[in-house]
């Protein structure tokens, strides 16, 4: 809502309060003022001039040579290119030395050999948006009414010496979609009175009811319909000040009748509609739901097909308006209109919303109906309209109005105790202070001991419960005046859950290991949603996606991270490591929420280590990434439960991928991205992993327990085993561990040889075995006994023998 400061002064005394101060006060007590526009900012030296002569420019077809009286001495010659300039007009003249918006300075000039002492201005040149300018002046200069005095400040004549407050209204404050609503609000803030207009028009002896009959079938949608009849209007422009107010509020002027209905919309918040009585085609107005398939041609000449959801104003048979949204073309007020019917009605918000949405027609009128107009202003708005029609369109107002009234208006009555007000706000207000606040709002109150009962005016439909009253008290008392406290009472220490703590540990660990945390989108396309999923499940699909690329929820994070690598790689960052923790979504069917499982994924590409001047350069390989994961499992106390097993997976390198198992259950994978996928994404050798973070973090871990530092020495024996190429190191290690018994504390691979010196199909794997007994110093015999068992086991179970 755009609020003219000058206009507002008609209802509330604003003396001593500048527009900027007013804006701040309004913002602080309830409605955010999003901006204050000074309409004549950056403009000076524009006066009303009188075009005394006009003739064609001798050297230019499209230019006019005008002699203009600007009220300052001798008339001056001005060259003007506007097609509508003519002798006798009163126009806005930017004189030599004037400044127009954009710091455009007017200088004496020669145009095609003719002197020009200034510029005759269009409204655009005075800073008004084209879409707000009446059609007749849209393509040329603006012409003032003939009685405008020459030499006056043109901007003052155009009411542009004003400032406009732009209110950002929250949905509950639709009462301020009217100047009167804003006036009540401002009066409450300033503690001043509201002066309401007192509409009164002389009426003729003829009765409106003799001209029209109103019948409402759809009483639920339209509980109140008021019609007034005005005869013999003279269609013409509305007064300049009215046009100015409409333009400042963002409405384009048309003619006096239409402008007056729009003016009332702004003033009262009540949308009106004017029908051409003689084009109605009957003497009856019937309000009903449309029939399915019924058609109306609206004012904008669009043919609109209707359904029974839509409310129609008809002449008894034919539709003449889509209620609350737009009038029909057949009954439109035109330049030859003589007699008009003014409609002021209360239409139900939901009904109007449905129609405006279905037809894509959102207007100032529909917006107000949708949010609910004040039922007690319907009649007053009609009265005010006919008063202005008599005043500014020369109309003859017929006596009375014709109504269909099924409206029950009961103002809300809400009670609240002073104790509750103070308890919720944390204040120590007295009943007197509370009563004063409601008096400023012009809410009637009744106090009984600690309880105050408020009768809420119908204009404030947002107030229905005691908390609403508390808010009114709070905001007018001023939130600046509230103390700052902290909650008192029972308080337990705050903390992260064990899961949340571990998740932070995982993040910190990976970052310490060199990975950047990424955050990517959950929504993706069909291919990426399922690629690299840990479990084959249907992805969750949006009912109405905005695009193919964001139509399903991901089952895996790796595809998103590969996108991140691709993006960076294309920008000269082809060595990069990223990880993400986040939900993937597994469908549970239409009825239930999907299962959301938190995953941990990582993707690493290019060089892992680079230290050029010392000649060190190491690309990522499988074991770098595996090492990172092993370190992570170590920190989470899961090392003994984790197993890596050779695996095949779509999109992964068939020989360089491992399945990760936790206590024997698969929880994810790690490996090289398949070279064809790498090529598609234009990536260097790339490794990725994805794990169910949920499974890993929820795995039970035995509590940390100190283990005595060894007091006796350990004995280490190294063995080199010759095994088949296909025998996995992990398998051999498992056999060794099992066979080594209690004394074998640690086994690790320290060498792998697959060269020419081996028999074809064989390889050599060297293990280091550490034996230890916490109770005593081991003898060679003890170790040999255990060691022999190990050698026997690897031979028997894996056919591996000591290398000779």
């Amino acid at each position, binding site marked *: 809502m755009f609020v003219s400061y000058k206009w507002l002064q008609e209802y509330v005394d604003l003396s001593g309060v500048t527009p900027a101060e007013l804006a701040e006060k309004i913002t602080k007590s309830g409605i955010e003022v999003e901006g204050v526009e000074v309409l004549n900012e950056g403009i000076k030296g524009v006066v009303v001039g009188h075009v005394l002569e006009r003739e064609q420019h001798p050297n230019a077809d499209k230019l006019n040579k005008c002699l203009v009286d600007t009220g300052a001495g001798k008339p001056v010659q001005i060259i003007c290119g506007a097609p509508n300039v003519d002798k006798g007009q009163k126009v806005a003249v930017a004189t030599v030395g004037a400044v127009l918006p954009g710091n455009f300075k007017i200088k004496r000039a020669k145009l095609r050999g003719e002197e020009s002492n200034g510029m005759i201005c269009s409204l655009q040149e005075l800073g008004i948006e084209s879409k707000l300018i009446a059609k007749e002046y849209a393509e040329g200069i603006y012409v003032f009414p003939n009685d405008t005095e020459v030499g006056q400040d043109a901007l003052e004549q155009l009411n542009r010496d004003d400032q406009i407050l732009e209110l950002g209204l*929250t949905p509950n404050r639709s009462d301020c979609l009217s100047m009167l609503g804003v006036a009540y609000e401002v009066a409450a803030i300033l503690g001043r009175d509201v002066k309401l207009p007192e509409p009164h028009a002389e009426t003729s002896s003829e009765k409106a009811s003799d001209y029209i009959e109103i019948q409402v079938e759809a009483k639920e949608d339209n509980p109140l319909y008021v019609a007034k009849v005005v005869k013999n209007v003279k269609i013409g422009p509305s007064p300049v000040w009215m046009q100015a107010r409409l333009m400042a509020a963002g409405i384009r002027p048309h003619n006096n009748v239409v402008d007056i209905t729009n003016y009332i919309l702004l003033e009262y918040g009540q949308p009106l509609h004017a029908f051409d009585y003689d084009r109605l085609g009957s003497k009856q107005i019937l309000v009903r739901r449309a029939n399915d398939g019924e058609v109306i041609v609206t004012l904008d000449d669009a043919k609109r097909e209707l359904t029974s959801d839509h409310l129609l104003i008809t002449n008894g048979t034919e539709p003449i308006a889509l209620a609350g949204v737009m009038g029909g073309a057949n009954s439109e007020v035109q330049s030859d209109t003589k007699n008009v019917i003014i409609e002021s009605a209360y239409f139900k918000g939901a009904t109007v919303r449905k129609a405006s949405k279905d037809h894509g027609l959102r207007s100032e009128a529909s917006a107000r109906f949708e949010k609910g107009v004040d039922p007690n202003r319907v009649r007053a708005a009609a009265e005010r309209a006919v008063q202005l029609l008599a005043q500014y369109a020369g109309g003859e107002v017929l006596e009375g109005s014709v109504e269909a009234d099924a409206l029950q208006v009961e103002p809300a009555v809400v009670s609240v105790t002073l104790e509750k007000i103070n308890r919720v706000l*944390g204040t120590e207000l007295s009943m007197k202070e509370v009563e004063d606040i409601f008096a400023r709002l012009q809410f009637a109150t009744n106090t009984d001991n600690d309880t105050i009962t408020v009768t809420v005016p119908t204009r404030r439909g947002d107030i229905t419960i005691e908390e609403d009253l508390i808010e009114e008290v709070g905001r007018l008392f001023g939130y600046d005046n509230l103390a700052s406290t902290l*909650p008192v009472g029972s308080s337990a220490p*705050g*903390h992260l859950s064990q899961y949340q703590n571990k998740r932070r540990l995982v993040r910190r660990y990976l970052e310490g290991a060199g990975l950047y945390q990424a955050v990517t989108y959950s929504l993706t396309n069909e291919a990426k949603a399922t690629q690299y999923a840990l479990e084959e499940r249907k992805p*969750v699909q*949006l009912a109405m996606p905005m695009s193919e690329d964001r139509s399903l*929820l991901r089952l895996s994070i790796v595809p998103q991270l590969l996108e991140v690598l691709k*993006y960076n790689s294309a920008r000269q960052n082809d060595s990069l490591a990223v990880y993400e923790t986040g939900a993937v979504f597994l469908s549970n069917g239409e009825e239930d929420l999907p299962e959301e499982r938190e995953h941990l994924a990582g993707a690493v590409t290019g060089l*892992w280590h680079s230290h050029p001047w010392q000649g060190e350069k190491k690309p990522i390989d499988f074991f770098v990434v595996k090492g990172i994961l092993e370190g992570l499992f170590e920190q989470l106390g899961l090392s003994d439960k984790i197993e890596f097993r050779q695996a095949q997976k779509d999109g992964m390198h068939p020989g360089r991928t491992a399945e990760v198992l936790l206590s024997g259950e698969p929880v994810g994978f790690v490996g090289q991205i398949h070279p064809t996928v790498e090529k598609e994404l234009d990536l260097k050798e790339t490794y990725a992993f994805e794990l169910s973070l949920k499974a890993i973090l929820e795995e039970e871990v035995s509590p940390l327990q100190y283990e005595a530092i060894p007091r006796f020495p350990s004995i280490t024996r190294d063995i080199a085993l010759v095994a088949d190429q296909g025998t996995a190191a992990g398998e051999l290690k498992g056999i060794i561990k099992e066979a080594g018994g209690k004394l074998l504390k640690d086994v690790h691979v320290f060498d792998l040889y697959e060269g020419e010196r081996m028999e074809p199909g064989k390889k050599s794997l060297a293990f280091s075995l550490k034996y230890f007994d916490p109770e005593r110093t081991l003898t060679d015999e003890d170790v040999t006994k255990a060691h022999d068992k190990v050698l026997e086991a690897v031979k028997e179970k894996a056919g591996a023998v000591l290398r000779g």
Partner: protein
Amino acid sequence: MQERLKELQTEALEKISTAADLKELNDIRVSYLGKKGPITEVLKGMGKLSAEERPKMGALANEVRDSIAAGIEEKQKHLEEAAVQEKLAAEKIDVTLPGRPVKTGNHHPLTRIIEEIEDLFIGMGYTVAEGPEVEKDYYNFEALNLPKGHPARDMQDSFYITEDILLRTHTSPVQARTMEKHEGKGPVKIICPGKVYRRDNDDATHSHQFMQIEGLVVDENIRMTDLKGTLEIFAKKMFGDDREIRLRPSFFPFTEPSVEMDISCKICGGKGCSVCKGTGWIEILGAGMVHPNVLEMAGFDSKKYTGFAFGMGPERIAMLKYGVDDIRHFYTNDVRFLKQFSVHE
């Protein structure tokens, strides 16, 4: 004899002083102090001396010997030191060459903001509550006083999956779920971070996916002044002690009264600039006293219990705090962007 000894001493000391290295010095030691050295030779002639002179001569010989030995020792020290110096000089490196890089990554800026807020509120006795990103219409809207048909829950603004299931549009359903779990008994004191989704075209200021973090306190006697005090602590911690805050009335369906919190603009110090659109204030979050309908629907007696809630966007906070100009940066994961957040002030 006496003269011969003196001569030897002078000669030896002379040689010692000109010795160039340890080997030469050792040779001097051997030649003068060794068993076959000249001093021993001289002393062999002692037998010819009288009994009176013999001890005198012995003492002199010892004196000469000691003086040579001391000379050698001193010289040796010098030579050793010089040798060390030489070695060190040869070992000199260029310390301005770059060190071997240690691989590090870092938090995403949004995580950084969220964890900072979590930790602040954990310190004030809150726990961190999380909930599903795909929600029931009931928890996302109805339980928050947004009944079906409410204009604020337009189908156009949300990603629905079925009529009853959608991607949550805010983290508030976590509040509803947590309150429900408390079965009408306070206190509830939670902070809820998470991803939310809205039907917006991605541009510099809009993202179809973004983060939210909300707080909720429900107990007997929770006052609006408690909300104000809590938010003041938050604002000063996040944006600096010198920032002023103001609460402005606003509207949200799930709170009543509702407020928005502004902080004074750091750029212009409150005088008005393009960042604060000339107002001197920057909007940071929405908050309010929990609407009685929300309390009742979650099983709390609104006569007995009151509460406050607040919610904010980590993206917006990061944008203001670090001057990030495009929300899409947070989801593009350009490493040149991510790397900048490894610095901790």
